[in-house]
């Protein structure tokens, strides 16, 4: 079966499902509104904390200036990937609770094709997020930037493929958890607790083998795109993507999807 057909099968399941539209709608709404209202947020801070406004002229913080806008938006948007992951968990665990995975296979979908249809949806949702942030960044950048220079506009756009990878890896993780756990509630709890558990472990590891820390899955995903805001407090930040980090996240993406494949292939469904 070709890829487009598989994607259409999965979308057919989702697009008549109200929860999909509610969560998906909230995600894209929050993404859009949140990304576009950074200046309002700064003004609010300035009003609330008096000395913040007097010490710093908020209009001089180039939050939405090219090229800062790309990294700022992408980093903030990355926080919302949890919402998208919950959507994926619901989509896959439904197939177990309704036993429709079983029926899909009986009807003639191979197990690999089933998994592929889910992975393609992950790719599609990641791509839509990327496009959305690109459009918002372009519009807000054009509004707020004092001058529009081509070389400034295309600087830092390598964060987009990194953002795509970050989302796709995390959604692959959510899909794998759903396939392993098979129950929505438990999967979501594990998904939310996993970063916390991992950071407890890394805190221990930090004492013995700090070199290992960048290889942990959640750590590698969450730190792929560095935190940009310290640069406005006159600190040095890493304003580029490390190839090593990319390699680690790609490796985890492959591992997550391969575990999903093995589990699906071997299980009696």
């Amino acid at each position, binding site marked *: *079966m070709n890829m487009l*057909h598989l994607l*259409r*099968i999965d979308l*057919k*399941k989702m697009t*008549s*499902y*109200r929860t999909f539209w509610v969560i998906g709608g909230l995600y894209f709404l929050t993404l859009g509104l949140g990304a576009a209202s950074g200046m309002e947020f700064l003004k609010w801070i300035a009003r609330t904390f008096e000395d913040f406004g007097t010490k710093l002229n908020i209009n001089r913080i180039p939050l939405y200036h090219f090229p800062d806008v790309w990294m700022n938006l992408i980093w903030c948007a990355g926080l919302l990937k949890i919402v998208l992951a919950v959507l994926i968990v619901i989509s896959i665990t439904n197939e177990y609770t*309704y*036993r*429709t995975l*079983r*029926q*899909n*296979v*009986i*009807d*003639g*979908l*191979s197990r690999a*094709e089933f998994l592929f249809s889910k992975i393609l949806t992950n790719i599609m949702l990641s791509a839509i997020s990327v496009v959305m942030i690109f459009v918002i960044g372009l519009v807000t950048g054009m509004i707020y930037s004092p001058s529009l220079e081509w070389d400034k506009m295309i600087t830092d756009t390598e964060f987009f493929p990194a953002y795509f990878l970050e989302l796709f890896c995390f959604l692959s993780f959510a899909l794998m958890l759903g396939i392993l756990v098979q129950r929505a509630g438990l999967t979501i709890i594990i998904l939310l607790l996993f970063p916390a558990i991992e950071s407890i472990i890394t805190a221990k590891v930090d004492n013995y083998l700090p070199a290992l820390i960048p290889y942990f899955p959640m750590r590698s995903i969450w730190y792929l795109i560095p935190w940009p805001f310290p640069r406005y407090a006159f600190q040095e930040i890493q304003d580029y993507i490390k190839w090593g980090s990319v390699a680690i996240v790609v490796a985890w993406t492959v591992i997550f999807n391969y575990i999903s494949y093995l589990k699906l292939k*071997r299980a*009696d*469904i």
Partner: protein
Amino acid sequence: MEAVLSIKNLTKHFGRIKAVNNVSLEVKAGQVFGMLGPNGSGKTTTLGMLMGVVNPTAGEFTWFGEQPTHEVRKKIGAVLEHPIFYPYLSGQKNLELNAMIKQCPVTNIPKVLELVELSERKDDKYKTYSLGMKQRLAIASALLNDPTVLILDEPTNGLDPMGIAEIRELIKKIAANGKTIILASHLLDEVQKVCTHFAVLKRGNLVHIGPVDDVGKGEETVEVSADVENLNELLLAFAGTSSIDRENGSYYVVMREGFHSKDLNKFLFDKGVVASHLLTKKKTLEKQFIEILASS
């Protein structure tokens, strides 16, 4: 006849439990094949392996002489255990999704909905359907790709007598179109009414396989009553009598080989007795089934 399904030494163990043990059988084109067995005898597990959802521990099987792949499954319509659909989708949309999976035209949908008499409810969500409607939608979905083989697992489970009769009529209608049907059930008269062949599973083992017509062969029992005092002695005097049993005012005469009810009738008539009630009873599948289970 061409073998549609050929199973060799199929085995499935769940831990220490042998759910299916070394089962071999063949289903030929055009047969309505009944799979009988008590609950937990391995019927659904066997069908699950044939449809690719349960991985066999050992053994193999072929569909249409081919190795089983997901492509082959598209040519088979199957409902295992109970109907499975997306509850939040309408019957129509569920079938559209199935058509996409089976890669068959959506134009088949109105035809199968018509056959199972669900056209009027097609746009209602699946979760609002009654059990009978769910079963019928499942049969519609199984027929969607105009399959040559249909697998039905307990298709009348949980239905009321009306629903059972409807599904039975539907199966007969489908069988009349020359489709091969594999029907798993523990309702024995259902199998006797619609099947041509049957197999019996017991604790995962195949203990019997043969045509349903053979069930009625062999000794015949005749139920007889007449308004005479000495009927018992008369029946004992009849050369074809093997044994006599009296129940509810009627005599049940088990006949010897080669004797039939008409011989008994003629004998009584010659003695000047007219039977007021004469009924040939063939052995039921139920009786045979219990005998098979007891002797294995």
